[in-house]
C-alpha cells in the first residue's frame, strides 16, 4: 500500500501546514487527470504536496493548463512547484521509453504560501508559511 504521511492540517489544526508525501507507487496507478486533481485539490486546501517521482512533461503541461482554469481573484492564485533541473542533457531513447527522466522529486504548494529562496541543480531551498 502506498505511503501517505500527513502532518497537522492547515486549517483549524494549530495553524500549521499539512504536508502530503505521495509515493511513486500510489501515483503509478493513477491517470494523468487523477494525479492533477489529487495535486490541485490538496494545494487548494492549503496543503504542500510532495511527489516522490514527479510528473511527465505531458502531465506538467496539463497541470499548468488546469491550474490556469482554477485561478480566481478572490481565492486561488496558482501553484508554486519545484523539482531539480534535468541532469541528462539529451536523454537517450531508453531513458524516454522507461521514463527515467520523469523521476524527479517534486514539491507543489499554494503560490501565496511558498517562496523559493534558492534553487540550483542540487539544492532547493524554500520557505512555507501558514495561511
Amino acid at each position, binding site marked *: 500500500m502506498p505511503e501517505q504521511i500527513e502532518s497537522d492540517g492547515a486549517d483549524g489544526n494549530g495553524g500549521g501546514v499539512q504536508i502530503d508525501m505521495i509515493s511513486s507507487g500510489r501515483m503509478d496507478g493513477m491517470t494523468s487527470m487523477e494525479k492533477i486533481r489529487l495535486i490541485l485539490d490538496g494545494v487548494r486546501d492549503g496543503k504542500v504536496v510532495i511527489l516522490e517521482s514527479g510528473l*511527465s*512533461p*505531458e502531465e*506538467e*503541461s496539463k497541470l*499548468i*493548463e488546469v*491550474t*490556469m*482554469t482554477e*485561478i480566481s*481573484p478572490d481565492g486561488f*492564485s*496558482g*501553484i*508554486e*512547484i*519545484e*523539482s*531539480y*533541473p*534535468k541532469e541528462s*542533457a*539529451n*536523454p537517450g531513447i531508453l531513458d*524516454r521509453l522507461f521514463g527515467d*527522466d520523469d523521476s524527479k522529486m517534486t514539491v507543489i504548494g499554494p*503560490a*501565496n504560501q511558498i517562496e*523559493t529562496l534558492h*534553487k*540550483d*541543480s542540487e539544492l532547493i531551498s524554500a520557505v512555507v508559511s501558514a495561511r
Partner: protein
Amino acid sequence: MGILTEIKDSISQTVNGIFADEGTARIGIYGPPNAGKTTLANRIARDWTGEAMGAESQIPHETRRAHRKEDVTIERDGNSVTLDIVDTPGVTTKVDYQEFVDFGMEEDDAVERSREATEGVAEAMHWLKEDIDGVIYVLDSSLDPFTQVNTMLTGIIESRDLPVLIIANKVDLGDASPGRIKQAFPQHETVPISGQEGDNVDELYEKIAEEFG
C-alpha cells in the same frame, strides 16, 4: 563539399521536407512573463517585414493572446528560411491580480487582466501541444534561469523533439549574465542578445536560419 556539410544539408532538406508537408513552419516565441518575447518578436517582424507584431509593456502579461506573423523570410549567409513567427503569452504557474494593482492599475482592470492572463497561458500551452514546429525560448539574462517554469517548459519542448534556440535577452542590462543561461541549458544553442537595443541580432538571424532552415 565536406562530409559534415553534406550531412547538414541532408538533415536540413529532410527537415524542410517535413515542414513543407504541413506548410510554413511555425516558430513559437516562448518564455516566462517579461522576458522580452514581444520586443524580440517585434524586432524580427520589423527587420524582415517592416511591421511590428504587438504592444510591449513593463507590466507582466501584456501579451494575453498568441499572435502569428505569417511568411517571415530571414536570409543569412546564403541560408534562407520562411517561417511563421508566433508570439505567445508568458507562461507561469501563478497569476495574482494584486501584482497588477502594485503596478498602479485599478482593481477592476487588474482582475480582468488577471483573468485574460490565465487564458493566455493556457492558450500558449495549447499552441505548444498542437501547432508549433520549433521554439525560440527567451530568458531575461539578468534573472536566475533555474526556475521551475523554465525547467518544465524546456522539458515539455524536449519531450516533443522540437528544435529550440535559447535567447539570453536583455544583455544591455548591467547585471546581465548570459553565461549563467548557457550553464543552465548546456544541451541547447544559446544566443546572447538585446531585443530592445538590437545587440547581436545578426548572430540570432544566423542561428535561426541554421536551426529552422
